[in-house]
């Protein structure tokens, strides 16, 4: 199955520069958010939204899902 991904902030670096954080990914049927994160190489703590709803790492993905990934905002940035 294929899902659309949008990586925000510094996470954009996980995709080629020209993609500016947008891309499509091929995943095995039944893959969960955690599998997607592993495939992308995400190591930071992130927040994942699937079709605009925040979902946990165990959430099972469906073909055509739109996934947005954000850095979990931690310390204060001036």
């Amino acid at each position: 199955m294929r899902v659309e991904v949008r990586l925000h902030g510094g996470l954009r670096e996980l995709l080629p520069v020209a993609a500016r954080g947008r891309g499509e990914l091929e995943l095995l049927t039944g893959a969960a958010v955690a599998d997607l994160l592993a495939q992308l190489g995400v190591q930071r703590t992130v927040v994942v939204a699937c079709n605009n709803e925040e979902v946990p790492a165990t959430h099972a993905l469906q073909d055509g899902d739109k996934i947005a990934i954000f850095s979990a905002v931690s310390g204060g940035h001036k």
Partner: protein
Amino acid sequence: MPYGYTGKILHVDLTTGKMHVEQPQPDFYRRYMGGSAMGLHYLLRDMRAGTDPLGADNVLALFNGLLTGTAISGQSRMTSVAKSPLTGCIGDSQGGGFFPAELKFAGFDGIVLRGQSPRPVYLWIKDGEFELRDASHLWGRITGDVEDALHAELDDNRVEVLQIGPAGENLVRYAAIMSMSNRANGRTGLGAVMGSKKLKAIAVRGTHKPEVADKASLMELTKWGAKMVPTSDVAGLGKYGTAEVVSGQHQAGGLPTRNFTSGSFDDWEKIDGTTLYDTRLKGAENGQQDRFGRDTCYSCAVRCKRVSEVAEGPYKTDHRYGGPEYETLATFGSYCAIDDLDAIIRANALCNMYGMDTISCGATIAWAMECFEKGRIGLEDTGGLTIRYGDAAMMVKLTEMIGKREGFGALLAEGSAQAAKIIGRGTDEFLITSKGQEAPAHMPQVKRSLALVYAANPFGADHQSSEHDPSYKSYPERMAQIGLDKPQEQLALNEEIVRYAMVTQHLYSALDSINVCQFVFGPAWQLYDTVQLAQAASAVTGWNITVPELLEVGERRLNMMRAFNAREGIGRESGALPKKFMKHPLGGGKSDGYVIDSKQFEEALNTYYRLCEWDSVTGYPTPAKLNSLGLGWLVVNGKKAPAKSATGKRPARVKVAAGRSAAAKKIVRKKPVVKTAAAKKPAAKKVVAKQKPIARKPIAKAKSASKPKPAARKPVVKAKAAAARRPAARKTAAKSKPAARKR
């Protein structure tokens, strides 16, 4: 003299023009380590309660830190402390750039400024020599012009200039102290203190690198950090700046919108850090923004500073004024419901030209917008201006009017809390302030530990005084280094979260005393962890500095600040949270309906005071606590405290305000612990004249910045001419050879 320091502090009396150098004993350095705590020592020792923040008796202390001037990333920081004209409490603010390192190279750990000059002056320091010079020709000029003028006058482009802009001269209560025309000691209005002293600038040039005890260990840490930057959690910070967090803040429902009415801004992508990077950084048109669109502080490998430009249109902006940080994008953007990135870049540049804190400035404008929208202020108040959310042109116009104290801008220059007092009509309902300081762009409704820190922080609401809630869960190994090993669920405000707030506050307080960048050193996502900070500090000084000692240094500083406020009669009651946080649930987005429960908050505050071992009723530090931190000199037996002196003479001690506990009534000045061997050294040339009181500007009467008056001036101290204006990639530690120094 301990390794890492110069061992010298410059004292300047601006009233008389007299200056001398103090050489403190080593225990002074070990106790405070630098920065904020070191400056506080002089404020507590030399100032009386009730001092007018804009009067001659306010002491303004500027200190760099223990690591400053070495090659490791994140060390070129300087703290300013003085009594704040915005809050009436202790004022404290940090800034970076190149000035802090240059000051150390020039031979000083800090500068303590007293008095008021009868006319504008600037302080010129070069390799241990110093003099006050006339600055009449610089008065009224914006930061970039002053920097250019001083480079020409001193015949050296490598001179670092710390200065105030016209806002500091005009005593805007949130005026900043600026360097490089784009770095700010922004918060608590210390630029107005410098302005009240008629000190326009401090220019420094130095060539002596600090001596390091264990060069090999420090070099190892330095190289490790530089190597790790691209793969660490600060990689995004370096590339996209602090603006990187706009997306995550919006997603979490924590992006303050319409003056904290909502935590979600529909148009967030237009002001996001990636948009700024893709479209407005210098060099973006040909993909060269990593080369030309990022700037740094002395010898920092992260390079998080923005160099943005608007080439044409109404918001045309020169890139020398830097680019907006996250806070600035939020306060001038989402706070005001403005999605015009060019307008925000322009407002940011205006703040840097006039020398103003972007947080207080943008937040004050957002407050005025809400007051206008809700009919609490009208055209008769604003001088005919219609001030509505989303009006970018009006936001930019107001920013300039504030810097010049023109028209309605003169009222907004007082800060929102003071303006609400003057206007009345329930406009205080929309204030987002603590102790009279506008809150930064992090929402306690979403990160609950911040409710405590905003309320209890001695210098008002601040986002850089503790680690924020999500880090507890996200960085368990690093948190365990400071004894935090019980992460809690989001939105918890239980005893463990209170402990988290307090312990991380101690650590952040230490960071501001050692004086390092909180993006590079810290307990969570930063480049170096707390153990590495202790290692770096030990390598520089040769002392065996441990993590508990660091935490104690931080706790000491917070208690000094509390003691300062207690003398002013300012304690727990001053920490009320904005009404909106408690009474108006947020609307829309992930945080829809979030509100702070006042009962739960009060209970958490009780726990906080108990854990801090402060008086739970007054919030004052207890004698036992002060003694345990080596601050016994701030305690006297008895129930008296120094009071306001209308005459400026040493006041008779009077009773403290009713309602304070016995434990907290005992904070007065006493002799300092540290003995100093004051090696007096006369200045080459001094400006000496009788003191003339500076007339404070009335709120209603605004004065515009006077026109620049160029004047050809001859520098007294000849300095070598530097080749050219700074290159885009600025000098690094590697560039200049360490000078051999005698110890």
